[in-house]
C-alpha cells in the first residue's frame, strides 16, 4: 500500500469534500492517479487539470508513497 494526499480545488458537484483541504488516501502499490479520483467518486471527465507533486499529469501517472495529487474542475468560463 501507499499513502498519498489529494486536494480538490474549486467546485466539484456531488463529490465531497471540495473545500481545498488535503485528504489522505491509502492506495494499492502501483496505483495510478485515476484510481485516486475513482476512490473519491470524481468522474474523470470532470477534471480540468491534474497535478502530481505540482507537475501536470494525467490519470495514467503512477503514484508513489507520499505523492500529493491536486485536481481542478473544468473551468469553462462564462
Amino acid at each position, binding site marked *: 500500500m501507499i499513502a498519498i494526499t489529494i486536494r480538490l480545488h*474549486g*467546485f*466539484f*458537484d456531488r463529490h465531497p469534500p471540495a473545500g481545498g483541504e488535503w485528504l489522505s488516501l491509502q492506495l494499492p502499490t502501483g496505483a495510478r492517479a485515476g484510481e485516486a479520483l475513482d476512490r473519491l467518486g470524481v468522474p474523470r*471527465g*470532470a477534471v480540468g487539470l491534474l497535478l502530481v507533486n505540482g507537475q501536470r499529469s494525467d490519470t495514467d501517472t503512477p503514484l508513489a508513497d507520499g505523492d500529493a495529487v491536486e485536481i*481542478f474542475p*473544468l473551468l*469553462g*468560463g462564462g
Partner: protein
Amino acid sequence: MPFSYTGKILHVNLSSGDIAVEEPDDLFYRRYLGGKGFAGYYLLKMLRPGVDPLGPDNVLVFAPGLLCGTPGPGLNRFTVAAKSPLSGAYGEAEAGGWWGPELKFAGCDAIVIKGRAPQPVYLWIEDGRAEVRDARHLWGLTTGEAQAAIRQELGEGPRKVRIAQIGPAGENRVRFACVVSELRYFNGRGGLGAVMGSKNLKAVAVRGRQEPALADPAAVLEIVRWHAKEFKNDPRGAALHAAGTPGLVAGLNAAGLLPTRNFQSGAFADAAALSYDAYQALLSGTNTCHACPVRCKREVSVTGDYAASPLYGGPEYETIAALGSNCGIGDLRAVAAANELCARYTLDSISTGGAIAWAMECFERGLLTRDDVGGLDLRFGNAEAMLQLVTMIAHRQGIGDLLAEGVQRAAARIGRGAEALAMHVKGQELPLHEPRGKFGVGLGYAVSETGADHLKMVHDTVFQTKESASLLSAAPLGIWEPLDAQDASSRKVRLYRLLENGPALWNCLGACFFVYAPRGFFPLERVPELVQAITSWRTSLGELWQGAERAINLARVFNVREGFGRADDTLPPRLFEPLEGGRLQGASLSHDEFEAALTLLYRMKGWDPATAAPTPAKLAELDIEWAAEEM
C-alpha cells in the same frame, strides 16, 4: 409556411414614426440564420461608415436567433446590435431569458430601428401589431419602476408582457450602458443601452401568443426529453445546474486565474468570501430561461447595510469578479448590491467593474487624487466607494462622468501613464478571464470584432486532460488531444480556429453557450438533427459552421469599413508583464508568440495578415461577395 421563424422583420423609423414589415425569402434565413447573422447583415447594409454611434444614423437591431422560442434545449437567446459607442466598432450582445422567444411569439424575427424619436418613446409589439408610444412619463425611472409602469398601462398581468429596456445609464449615454429584460437578463456589452438612449427609446415591450411552428414536433420532443434526462449525468451540466457560474470562483482562484486588483494578480486572498459557499448564504432561489432545464440562474436576497432583491436576480461569475476580486473587494453582499444597482440603472457590470478597478489603481498610484474623486477613499477593497461610484457613473456625477466614457477615453483624458493601466481591447473593458493562463482566450479578446469578449472560444482550461468531457465532445471538430491552457503554439491557433465558429453559431441560432458542447452537454453531432427537426432543412454541421463563419466575416467587414485593422487586434500591455501572486506567479505573454499566433490565425481564417481583412476568396467561399464591395 416556414418553420421556426415567422418570415417577418419589422423596420421602425423613430424619426418619422414609420413602421414597415419586410418579408425576406427562405434563402435569406438559410444564409444569415438570425441573431448575430442578421446583425452583421443589417449593420453593413443600412449604416453608412463613420456615423456617430450616438446619433440618429446609427441602426439598432433586435434579433432573436433562428431557433429562439422553440422548445429545443436552451434556445432562448437574442442579439442586440449597433455600432458601439464604446469601441466605435461593430457592437453586438446576446441575452437569454424570455424576451427573444416572446418576440417570435409576437410574429417577428427581428426589429431594425433607425432615426431618433423627437421625445422619449417605447415600442409596443403585440401579435404582429407595432406601435410607438409616449414614454415621457417613464424617462428617468429605474428599470424596476419602468417595468411596473409599462405593465400596468398595457393592462396585462405581471408576467405576460416582456420588456427589454434601459434605465438612467442608458438615458445618460454611459458608453457601456446595457439593455436589460425582465430586470435580470442582460445584453451587456458594447454600450447598446446608450444607443437606445440616444434614440429616445426607453423600452421595447412585447406580447405574443403564437409559438413557432416545428417541422417535426415529435422528433423535437424526443430530443428535449433526452437532453432533460441526460444533462445532469454530465459534469458540465451537473456543475452549472448545481452552482451556476458562481461555482467558478474558487477553482479559478486556486488555478491563479481570478483577476484581482485590475488584473495585477491572479489570486485573491479573500476569494473564499466570494465563492460558492458564501453565495449559498445569500441564495433565495434558482431561475432559468425559456426551454432550459439547466437552471443556472441564481437569485439572491440581501438585507441590512447592503440590500439586494431577488427581483434583479443575482450576480453571475463575471459580476462577482468584476466588482469583487478585481476591485479587491471580498464581500459578496456588496457585490450583490452592486449587481442590483447595475440592473436598475442598466450598466454593464463587466465594464463598470473594469472602470472602477482602473480608477482604484490610478488612485493608489497618485494619478487620481481625493479631490479628483469627490473625496472618496478610492483604494482597492473599499466596498462603500465602489457602490457610490456605480451610482455616480450611471448619473454621470463627478468622477463618474469620466468613468462613464470607458477606461480607454478616461485614461487618454488624464494621461501620465494611466493608459498602461487601462485593461481594454478596442475600448471595451476586459472580461474576468486571465489570458496569461488561457492563451486562446487572449486571442479571442484580441480578434473579437466587439472588443474584448470572453465567449469567442470555449476556454483553453477545459481541453487539458485526455478524459475531459469537453475534449471528448470536441472530437467531431477534429480536436482529439489535450493541450496546455498556456500553450501558445500553432496547435493552440488550430484549436481556436476549430472552435471559434461554435459560439458564433449559437449566437445565430439563439442557443446558449452553456447548453451546447464543448462548454455544455448537448453533443455537436446532434445539432444538425435538432436543426432539421425544427426547420425541416436537410443540414450538416458543415453548413451550420459556415453560416457562423459568414456572420463573423460580416462583422469583420463592418470593422474594416470603419477603419479598424490589425493594430486594433491587440491586448493591453499589462498582459505582457508578469502576473503577481497565485499559482501562475510570473506568467506573462510574449509579444513574439502573440504576433506569430495572430498571423497564423489570420491565414487560417482566410484574412490578410497585414490588414486583418477577409480576402475576396474567403468572402466568395462564404457566398457574401457583396460584402467585399463594402471594404
